[in-house]
């Protein structure tokens, strides 16, 4: 590799490592938000590059909605174990009980919004001053506007009109008591960059990212996995399809795509040829309104 022409994945990798080390250097009690999805798995891989042979200067934190895919949970535990880093799990179920929250209703009752309560409680419990997240700017319009160091008030709220200027590669992590920063090292990566990086670095993924047989129902053109968390009614036809997941969120708000791609090369081929965006194809929750993500972020969502 010539020095003059660092491959673009190397540049993205170096930028992400730089951001993680800024978090480690500027904050007392950071955390890495880990969901078991490919983006946060990539973050863990980048953290290994940033901090080994030392330990991570932060724990992995998983906000467990109780609606996760079992494959993602198994992967999570096995990964934390194999790298020997601390994993903190906090359950939305417990927040619902202790805070007397109302469970969401409807066919695909999603705990996505309730997650924010548990996240904010966890931040308070451990006094986290910075949370590293795997959000990417190509995912969605509101994310495209967010800074790499995004300051949140004591309610976790994002104020898009009051963002700090963020110049060069200089990140201002100074905050007042009670505030915290969400730091996004892979802001400038696209979905395809993530897949290309996973292939290049040979990163292991949960099995649901690859083609498998699954019972699903078809709902408004999307394939939703049959699980105890969705309500089936008489009109629903359960079909067994060859599918894979393009994103991994809750079973209630993530749709599968029909696919026979059983390895990374085939997945990259499919994504390169696809005509639908990642969120458009697989997220049931973003379809609600044009500004769904902006509203959730203003309320403390990561």
């Amino acid at each position: 590799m010539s020095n003059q022409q660092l491959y673009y994945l190397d540049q993205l990798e170096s930028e992400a490592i730089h951001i993680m080390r800024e978090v480690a250097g500027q904050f007392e009690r950071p955390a890495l938000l880990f969901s078991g999805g490919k983006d946060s798995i990539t973050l863990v891989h980048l953290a290994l590059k940033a901090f080994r042979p030392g330990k991570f200067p932060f724990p992995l934190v998983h906000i467990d909605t109780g609606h996760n895919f079992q494959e993602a949970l198994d992967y999570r535990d096995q990964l934390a174990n194999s790298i020997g880093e601390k994993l903190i799990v906090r359950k939305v179920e417990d927040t619902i009980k202790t805070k007397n929250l109302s469970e969401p209703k409807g066919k695909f009752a999603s705990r996505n919004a309730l997650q924010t309560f548990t996240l904010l409680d966890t931040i308070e419990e451990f006094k986290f001053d910075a949370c590293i997240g795997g959000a990417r700017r190509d995912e969605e319009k509101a994310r495209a506007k967010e800074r790499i160091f995004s300051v949140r008030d004591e309610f976790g709220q994002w104020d898009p009109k009051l963002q700090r200027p963020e110049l060069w590669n200089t990140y201002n992590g100074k905050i007042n008591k009670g505030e915290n920063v969400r730091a996004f090292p892979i802001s400038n990566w696209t979905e395809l960059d993530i897949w290309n990086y996973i292939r290049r670095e040979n990163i292991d993924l949960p099995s649901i990212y690859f083609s498998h047989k699954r019972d699903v129902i078809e709902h408004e053109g999307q394939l939703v996995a049959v699980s105890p968390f969705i309500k089936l009614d008489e009109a629903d036809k359960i079909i067994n399809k060859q599918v894979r997941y393009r994103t991994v969120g809750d079973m209630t708000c993530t749709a599968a795509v029909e696919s026979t791609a059983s390895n990374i090369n085939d997945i990259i081929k499919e994504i390169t040829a696809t005509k639908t965006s990642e969120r458009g194809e697989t997220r049931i929750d973003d379809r609600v309104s044009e500004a769904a993500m902006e509203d959730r972020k203003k309320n403390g969502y990561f």
Partner: protein
Amino acid sequence: MDLLRFITAGSVDDGKSTLIGRLLYDSKSILIDQLEALEKQSRNKEDGEIDLALLTDGLRAEREQGITIDVAYKYFSTPKRKFIIADAPGHIQYTRNMITGASNANLIIILVDARHGVVEQTRRHSIIASLLNIPHVVVAINKMDLVDYSQDVFNNIVIDYAKVAKTLDLKDVSYLPISALKGDNIVDKTESLKWFDGDTLLELLEKVEVAKDINLTHARFPVQYVIRPQTEELHDYRGYAGKIISGIYKKGDEIIVLPSGLTSKIKSIEIGGREIEEASAPQSVVLQLEDDIDISRGDLIVQNINKPNVQQDLQVLLCWMDNKPLIAGNKYLLQINSRTVKSIVKEIEYKLDVNTLEKNYSTNSVGLNDIVKATIRTASALPFDSYKDLQVNGGAILIDETSNVTVGACMIQ
């Protein structure tokens, strides 16, 4: 495949959003669901054409008001390059947001309306490009369809702009006639502009050489974090983690730590636990040194040649970014790469008119978006370079210690 970061700045009606929409659309980077959302939103428009501008404005307030307030980042790639677009507002009121987007750009596209030629906004954006030292400038003369694709109109604007470029000492300037709305000369050459024999915008973006903009002669390594495993087998391991912002480091090189002036030799260079012989900007690495000397976050590791300045008094061009005015004599934190020091803005020499470049020596009120020449004194010696010579070690931010907000951007002279 490498990476190009560019910025497009513009305000309502000058076609910036349409241009970005066109680049994404014609390079097939827009997907069906995004297009459907777009069609739904465009339905109210009279001509029924898809409004490509709607692709870029991400916040509710922006869509409601039809303006760009903050920078949005957009991504697309061709087989040759990955592109990161900073889509920034062009209005003077949002200069600080434009500067945020411009600070990392390899290239700026300055949009000129063919009907109006070089106007105040063109000059302002060019001044910002020059202040921030953006290496490559593309002057895109847009809306050629509204001047009958006239070659004379184009040539006259080129002559006008060349004067601006000369005053501002802009180095690499290219000129293009385009119509973002009709798609002329963006991705494809069209019949309408057949008199123009240069590249299309996309061809130009793919060709611009950015690798040579990275400085490989002045070694600068700001220490971000010290790795100390403190395990039995790695008892004495001390690794200095950071990103090489310029220059090349080799195993065995003699180094100097600034501002302390301590010296040592590089014992090893690692990337992700793997040892390498040599590393260069912009790689993130871990350095181990031969000697056990005192180094912590904020120190700068350099070599014995092409050393930076180390001093406490800085002459800066300062862009003020806060709603509260800048007052000479106030104290701020100054952050340059990983180093943060206390500082005082001692003197404000003049204010720069960003529309005309005139110097105004009446400086009693310095407000949001004003650019001034100032003297700053730091509490301890600071290693830095001149922004013009070595941008990566010459740009600093000012932080208000009471609000913690970033209030100023300094280009050290």
